[in-house]
C-alpha cells in the first residue's frame, strides 16, 4: 500500500507539472482566466503530492 501511495505521489507531481505547463501556455494564448485556473490546479496538486509523501507535522 505504501508503494501505491508513493506511485500516486509521483503521478501527482507529473500532473502538477502538466497543469503548470497548461497554465503558462494559456497565458501565451491571452486566456488569463484559463491560465489562472490551471496554475491554481497545479499548485494544489503539487501540494497534494508532497503532503501525500510527507504529512505535515510528521517527524
Amino acid at each position, binding site marked *: *500500500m*505504501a508503494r*501505491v*501511495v*508513493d506511485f*500516486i*505521489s*509521483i503521478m*501527482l*507531481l*507529473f500532473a*502538477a*507539472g*502538466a497543469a*503548470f*505547463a497548461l*497554465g*503558462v*501556455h494559456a*497565458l*501565451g494564448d*491571452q486566456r488569463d482566466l484559463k491560465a489562472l*485556473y490551471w*496554475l*491554481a*490546479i*497545479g*499548485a*494544489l*496538486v*503539487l*501540494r*497534494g*503530492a*508532497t*503532503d*501525500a*509523501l*510527507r*504529512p*505535515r507535522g*510528521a517527524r
Partner: protein
Amino acid sequence: MVALELPKKSHALVSIANVLLPGLYAWVTTVAYPASHRGAPWPARAAALSALVLLALGPVVAFNRPALGRAVGMLGFVALCLLTWIFLGSLLNVDRLEPVRAGLGGIGWALFGLGWGTQRRVGTIPEDDPHAIFGPPLAARDRLPFGALIVFGASLVGAGVVLFLAWRVTRAEDALLAQCVALIAAIALVGSGARVALDRGKWKPLAPRARINAAARPLALAALLLALGFVWILLR
C-alpha cells in the same frame, strides 16, 4: 624560492582574470553600451564608471580581505550596475534592446558569478588542508530510493518545459508576469520533485491512510476546481 613564488603569482593573476574578464564583458555589453548612448543621463554614466572601478578594485582587495573584496567587487559592482539601469529608465526599453548582445551579456554575467567562486589549485592535495578529516572514508547512510533520478529528472524536464513556454508570451505587459509565474512554478516543481524523489523511503513507516488523509484537502480542492471546469465547458 623563485620557483615557489611564480605559481602563486600566476594563480593570483588567473583568479583576477577569472573575475575581471567576464565582469568587464558583462559591463561593456549591458551597462557601458546603453550608458554611452546619446541622451543617457549623467548619473547613469557616473554610476556605470563607479561600477567599473569597483569591479577592478574587488579582486585586488579580496587577496588580503576576502569578505571586503567580495562585498566591493560583487555586491558593490552589481548594485551600481542596477543603479545605472534605473537611471537609464526608458533607454532600456525592450524594443531598444538587441537580443544577441543582451544574450551574450547574460552569459557574461553568469561567468562573472562563477568567476567569484573558488576552485582547487592545480597540484594541491585535498588532504593537505588543515580542515581535512583523516580516517576511513565515510560510508553513505542510505541509498537513493528506486527511480529517484528518473523522478527528479522528470521534474527538471517539466520545469524546463514551463520556462520554455513562458517565452511564448509576446505581449510586453504580460511577458514579465509569465516569466515570474514560470520561474515560481519551475522552482516549486524542482523542489517538490527532489522531495518526492528522495524522501519516499523516509516516511514509509507512516500508515498509508494517514498519508492519503494529509493530502486530502489540497487534492479535494483541485478536484473541485476540475469539476467546476468541466461544468463550465458543458454550460458553454
